[in-house]
């Protein structure tokens, strides 16, 4: 855990040093069709045992570099005014419990960002894709190393400049193999996270 905190601190400090300046009053991000976003998020996975068959308390840090592209101009005229982005994300999870194992996935992603508040932009996101982990086979819930990961969550982007934002949020994580082998009870977890994005 101290190592994980050091990594997060280094990311945040590095991000603050690379932003050109923080202007409190005149930050009005102009995200239009074709604007691309690269980001890095990190969080800590906390297990949910939803049924009596779930016994594993898998947990550990997660790192999620991502790329997205905005495909709509802001839609709507009320509080729900926002725009859609699609993209992809790599997810790496280092399971520290119950065994030191690893997971790596690639997930296409779709996000709806609420733009009514200018520099504070809440968003909802959904992602899903293949996920490999060597934790499977060592626990009763999953037998196959080849799995899928599905995540849904929400967050808030706070724009420090019109091209850089800090993000915090929450995701619900589900890992299972879509019935390709048994047992396939699935692993569920919460993933609070923080990170940053650059827009260009």
């Amino acid at each position, binding site marked *: 855990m101290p190592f994980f905190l050091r990594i997060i601190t280094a990311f945040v400090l590095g991000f603050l040093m690379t932003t050109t300046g923080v202007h409190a009053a005149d930050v009005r991000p102009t995200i239009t*069709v074709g604007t691309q976003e690269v980001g890095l998020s990190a969080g800590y996975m906390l297990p949910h045992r939803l049924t009596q068959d779930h016994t594993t308390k898998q947990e550990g840090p997660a790192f999620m570099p991502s790329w997205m592209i905005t*495909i709509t101009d802001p839609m709507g005229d009320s509080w729900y005014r926002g725009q859609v982005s699609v993209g992809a994300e790599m997810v790496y999870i280092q399971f520290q419990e119950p065994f030191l194992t690893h997971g790596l996935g690639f997930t*296409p992603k779709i996000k709806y960002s609420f733009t009514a508040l200018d520099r504070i932009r809440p968003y909802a996101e959904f992602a899903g894709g293949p996920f490999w982990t060597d934790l499977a086979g060592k626990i009763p819930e999953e037998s196959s190393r080849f799995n899928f990961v599905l995540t849904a969550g929400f967050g808030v982007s706070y724009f420090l400049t019109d091209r850089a934002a800090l993000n915090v949020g929450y995701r619900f994580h589900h890992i299972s193999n879509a019935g390709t082998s048994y047992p396939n009870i699935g692993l569920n977890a919460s993933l609070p996270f923080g990170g940053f994005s650059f827009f260009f």
Partner: protein
Amino acid sequence: MSQIFSRPLIGSVLAMTLGLGTACSHSIELAAPTDTIPSTNTIVATDARVPLLLETIRVTHNGSSVPPPAILERQILGAIEATRLFSQHYQSGYQQPEANQARVTVRLSIDNLVEPHAGQAAWRGFLVSASMFTLAPFISLNYDFGAQMSLEMERWDGQTKQYTATSNGSAHYNLFGANPEIIEQLKGQVTEACLSSLLNQVIQDSAFYLASHAQSQDHPIRTVSVGIRHSTPHAIPISQPIAGASPR
């Protein structure tokens, strides 16, 4: 044996290269102009030209008023200046022509209609990402932009003429070809086409905007060719002073 494996490998690499290349493509289509007036050039006497004052530019964006971007003001003034129909060009808020000087006052109204097909883009974007981006080369996204311009030109004696022009265009692009510059190009091309159509109508009425001057014996007749300057670079014909006359 290695050849058997290398063929699918080479094929896959070629397919991915082709797919990514196609997925980055984009195109812009401009609708045929609504007016059928052919582009015209005419010769006018230099001394008969009067200054022009661009008084107001009103811009609406899907019906909502927006402040005219500075780049648009420059584009409009530049296009008018390029016609050479007027001797000097002034913009409201800057240096003004003298009060007693004959001038033409211009008021321009631009109604922009933007149809980004947001719902369609969101749905198609979802399909593309759900397919792990393999459908990106085959699913295109669209963005439509239209401009309707209304130009009022008032002569120094209070007589006015109205001109209108409409232009439409569409950008078609694939997911990886999406780029803010494509949308800006589309808007720029539509605006330029509309402006050209409008100014072409003004050129038809060149005589209306010229002050009549009695030609003095001491003054040679100097003329200038006025017309629409298209973005394609070409030489601008300017007629020469009458041979033997000495300009003052």
